[in-house]
């Protein structure tokens, strides 16, 4: 939590001014009883009505000044808290965006979303209250103690006992509460996850008529959450009664010693009244403090959860260029090469890829085919360095991918992932992701190549057609074609199609491949596909099995010698005999 305070830096002025004005206000508040005492001691005793009016006016002035100070304090603290939270949110978002793929895999989206939203909100209100009241309350508590000492040092010793005792209670409860609030947040995460999951899988759930079971599962999680919440509530419910007992215990001792001191003639009756008043002032402040502590405790627990995200290292360091090869001119023949590359995902028991070696020349088309879980996606993910190899290396233009600045590397690569994702906005906005400076002409060209003309221009609004969240207003095939267009807009040197035409019908798929092959320039293309027909014309086909390259060659070569490939093709073209008849 404390490390987060650096985001407060810009608001240092506000963070100092807010409590300062608050203290000023508290100070004015301490003067009011003093004036009232004068009214009683001087005004009433001497029957001086003018004096009484004068003192009352003074009190009004104090009240007004207090009001101004207080509003100033509220303003500064709101500014500091909101500014802090806003900075924190922005930095956390930036940090999450900098996390590597393997980190993203391990953390999971829904916890990050709660941390971005409800956790930060809690921190914001915590900071706000802290600035407004956390200094004021101790100030009044200790101020009252100092006042008590000026009245009677011996009787005031009780304050020295009571105040630390109260601190122990207050901070004790706080210490116990923090882990409990952590648990509450953890439970809340589960509820978020369940809700999200249900919204995403709503079709499947309804198809299986699972609504009642889902509701039951939610009830279970929800009940668990309520139970932890109740437990945490029970802990904080103890605090107020406990402090009340302690303060009033102190009061009794005070009365007891007071009675003795009055009897001895050391103290006056009025002084005892003053001491009692200070004791009750402490109680009033403590009640406020206790409520605050609940909020602040929550804020700290949430702050720690946010801190935990910040502590995740982005995970990928750029390696210093140790081997400066002759690749600087950018025209090397060898575009991509794998040298004994292996990949093991964090936490996985076995390698997903082992000893992968091959190289691809500029302008070549490479097909990758293989069974489910054979490592096709893993393999292409290494090219734009989504993951780091665990052994060997991957080179692009003769240079280890780890030596490139990530932006430079990824700018060379157009990647279309298995699951086509579009973002809320317009089609144009989505396509511009590929290249911000693309003209409408270039966008249309990419759309034509991706066979998405009917998707874009079938609708009246064309490039400005709205895209709903997740592209839900487009079918799977439409999304895939738009995702391909997005990659093409970039005019990448390396284009990777990771099974990204799976929802397309054959005619569209065939036209797409022809169009891509017909593009000017020497684009190196990787096609991961289930369809042998999509790969048939590739210069090189890699057949993957269990994370290893089973064979590599052209369609004809593989048909001749690779049993795995033959089996795939037999399945693929059952209609051949028909046609030959």
């Amino acid at each position, binding site marked *: 939590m404390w490390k987060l305070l650096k985001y407060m830096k810009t608001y240092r002025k506000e963070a100092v001014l807010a409590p300062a004005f608050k203290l000023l*206000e508290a100070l004015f508040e301490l003067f009011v009883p003093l004036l009232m005492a004068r009214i*009683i001691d001087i005004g*009433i005793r001497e029957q001086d009505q003018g004096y*009484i009016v004068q003192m009352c006016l003074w*009190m*009004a002035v104090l*009240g007004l000044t207090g009001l101004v100070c207080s509003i100033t304090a509220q303003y500064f603290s709101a*500014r500091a808290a*909101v*500014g802090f939270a*806003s900075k924190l949110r922005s930095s956390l*978002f930036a940090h999450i*965006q900098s996390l590597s793929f393997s980190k993203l*895999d391990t953390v*999971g*989206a829904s916890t990050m979303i709660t941390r971005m*939203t*409800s956790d930060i909100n809690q921190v914001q209100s915590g900071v*706000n209250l802290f600035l407004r009241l956390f200094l004021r309350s101790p100030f009044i508590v200790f101020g009252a103690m100092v006042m008590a000492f000026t009245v009677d040092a011996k009787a005031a010793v009780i304050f020295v006992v009571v105040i630390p005792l109260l601190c122990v209670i207050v901070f004790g409860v706080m210490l116990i509460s923090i882990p409990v609030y952590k648990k509450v947040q953890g439970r809340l995460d589960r*509820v*978020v996850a369940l*809700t999200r999951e249900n*919204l995403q899988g709503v*079709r*499947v*759930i*309804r198809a*299986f*008529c699972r609504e009642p*079971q889902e509701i039951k599962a939610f009830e279970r999680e*929800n009940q668990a959450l309520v139970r932890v*919440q*109740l437990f945490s*509530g*029970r802990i904080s*419910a103890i605090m*107020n009664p406990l402090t009340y007992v302690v303060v009033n*215990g102190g009061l009794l001792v005070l009365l007891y010693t007071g*009675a003795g001191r*009055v009897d001895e*003639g050391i103290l006056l009756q009025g002084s005892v009244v003053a001491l009692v008043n200070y004791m009750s002032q402490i109680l009033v402040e403590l009640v406020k403090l206790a409520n605050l502590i609940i909020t602040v405790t929550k804020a700290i627990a949430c702050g720690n959860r946010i801190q935990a995200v910040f502590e995740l290292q982005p995970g990928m360091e750029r390696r210093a260029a140790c081997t400066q090869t002759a690749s600087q001119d950018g025209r090397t023949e060898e575009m991509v090469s794998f040298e004994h590359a292996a990949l093991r995902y964090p936490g996985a*028991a076995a390698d997903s890829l082992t000893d992968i070696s091959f190289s691809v020349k500029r302008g070549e088309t490479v097909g990758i085919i293989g*069974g*489910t879980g054979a490592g096709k996606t893993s393999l292409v993910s290494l090219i*734009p360095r989504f993951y780091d190899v665990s052994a060997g290396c991957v080179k692009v233009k003769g240079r280890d991918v780890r030596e490139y600045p990530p932006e430079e590397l*990824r700018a060379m690569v157009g990647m279309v992932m298995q699951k086509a994702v579009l973002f809320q906005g317009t089609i144009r906005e989505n396509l511009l992701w590929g290249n911000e400076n693309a003209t409408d002409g270039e966008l249309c060209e990419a759309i034509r190549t991706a066979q998405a003309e009917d*998707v874009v221009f079938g609708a009246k609004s064309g490039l400005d057609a709205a895209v709903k969240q997740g592209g839900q207003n487009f079918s799977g095939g439409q999304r895939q074609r738009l995702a391909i267009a*997005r990659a093409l807009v970039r005019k990448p040197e390396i284009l990777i199609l990771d099974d990204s035409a799976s929802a*397309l*019908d*054959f005619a*569209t798929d065939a036209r797409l491949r022809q169009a891509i092959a017909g593009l000017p320039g020497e684009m190196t293309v990787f096609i991961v596909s289930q*369809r042998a027909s999509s790969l*048939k014309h590739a210069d090189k086909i890699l057949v993957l099995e269990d994370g290893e390259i089973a064979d590599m060659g052209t369609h004809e070569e593989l048909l001749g010698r690779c049993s795995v490939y033959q089996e*795939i093709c037999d399945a*693929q*073209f*059952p*209609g051949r005999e028909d*046609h030959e008849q």
Partner: protein
Amino acid sequence: MNNEEQKQTIKKVLRCIRPHGILVALSLLMALVFVALTLYVPVLTGRVIDHMTGPGAVEFDAVFGLMKQILGAVLLTAGAQWIMNAANNRIVYRVSGEVREQAFRRIEELPLQYLDAHSSGDMVSRVVADVDQFSDDLLMGFTQLFTGVITILGTLGFMLCVNVGITLVVVLLTPVSLLVARFIAGRTYRMFRRQSETRGEQTALIDEMIGNQKVVQAYGQEKRVQEKFDEINDRLSSYSLQAIFFSSITNPATRFVNSLVYIGVGLTGAFAAVRGAMTVGQLSAFLSYANQYTKPFNEISGVVTELQNALACAGRVFALIEAAAQTPDADPAEKLPEDPGCLSLEHVCFSYTPEKKLIEDFNLEVKEGQRIAIVGPTGCGKTTMINLLMRFYDVDSGAVKIEGKDIRALTRRSLRSSFGMVLQDTWIRSGTIRDNICMGYPDASEEEMIEAAKKAHAHSFIKRLPQGYDTVIGENGGSLSQGQRQLLCIARVMLCLPPMLILDEATSSIDLRTEIRIQKAFQTMMEGRTSFIVAHRLSTVRNADVILVMKDGNIIEKGDHQSLLAQNGFYAKLYEAQFAEVQ
């Protein structure tokens, strides 16, 4: 939300609290005890002080007696406060739990039209963040409102006993405080609402971008996304600043009014004392009570802003809870006979948005056990067919009939459980593999489950997972590959084997070797079952009884493989495109 809506929201909140009436009564009772005793302790203390008039004149017996009473009162007070807190906690957490549950139930009942049109991030924020905020503020409000009101009444009583005239001064001045609080609250409500809306917008963006962070990074869009985020963030922060600042003015402002009350009491009291109408002791008691009386007003006005905020959140939650549910099952609803198979679509018209027509006057007759393949260019309405068959969406006109019965006359359960569906977008829930496979048939035995997994060719990869069938899968399939997820989805359908099947490009990301085996399993599964297959693989299509070639929402060709080829139309062209590659 205007006043009327606010009132409605309050009514709804009260309705949610009603079942906890006993706890509310207990809480109220304890609040009463707590406040009465808190007010009584100073009286006792004052009496103790009265017994110590000067040196040598302290009446120790009386002092000790009173001190015992104080001790008793203090312990009772603490006890009452503890019970009150506990009761309040219980009420608030239970109510928020129940509201969350209601919201979730409603999500399960909302028509897909609603769910497709609303961002899931926003809905999640309603179910979680808004309910949370609403319960938090409610808890604070609940505790402070009760004690505040009772303290006011209690002190008022005590003050009336001492001096009626000065009490009137207090009573006449306090409404000013309430007016100020009301004035500010009315203005802050709008800002809280704007804050809440912007927050929803931001949550939606976070949901979208963090959920698809990999794509964002692949396109190096971090900066642009960040800019967009910062734009919303800045807007949110300015709304928050306004909302928080203006609401926090309430406290100082009412405190100022209160100090005016204090001064008023001091002034009139002092004048009365000068006239001899009041003793100094009475005045000081009065002043302390005036303080007691005005302090709850601070709290209550604080509560008002908190409750405003809670109401804004509650309003959003109730908006979700009260969103129109899907049309309920017809009453009395019919059930399908055992093993239905005949199906017809009669003059079906359907579109997602009125301005863009999709399916018009669609007719189709399916006989029992037929295999219907739907092919056509992407976006021609194939997925829409599934939405209609499963009644995810209702037709605009015309009817879908099974065994001659309009599906709108059937229970959804009866309709949907007679279809087995594998969708293009695989969805795996977090939980074990077992949970996922047994989703449609939770009572399946171990053997049945393994049998289904074997048929779906999922058994071999499941076996290799660290804990086999008990391996826990993370959010949305986590570590499984796309193909493995699809195998699981197939196993899920294999296990319950309903009389009709809908396969939506189900095998598109499974490698072909596995697919052949699945195709074989599907052949046996489809034996005697009416099946709809949205597929691109000609091998699948060729075995179909009827092939529907769709374009722009309409069937343009209909027939079996051979006859369609012979027609040399659109289908033939599609087929050639694939076939040309093979040669």
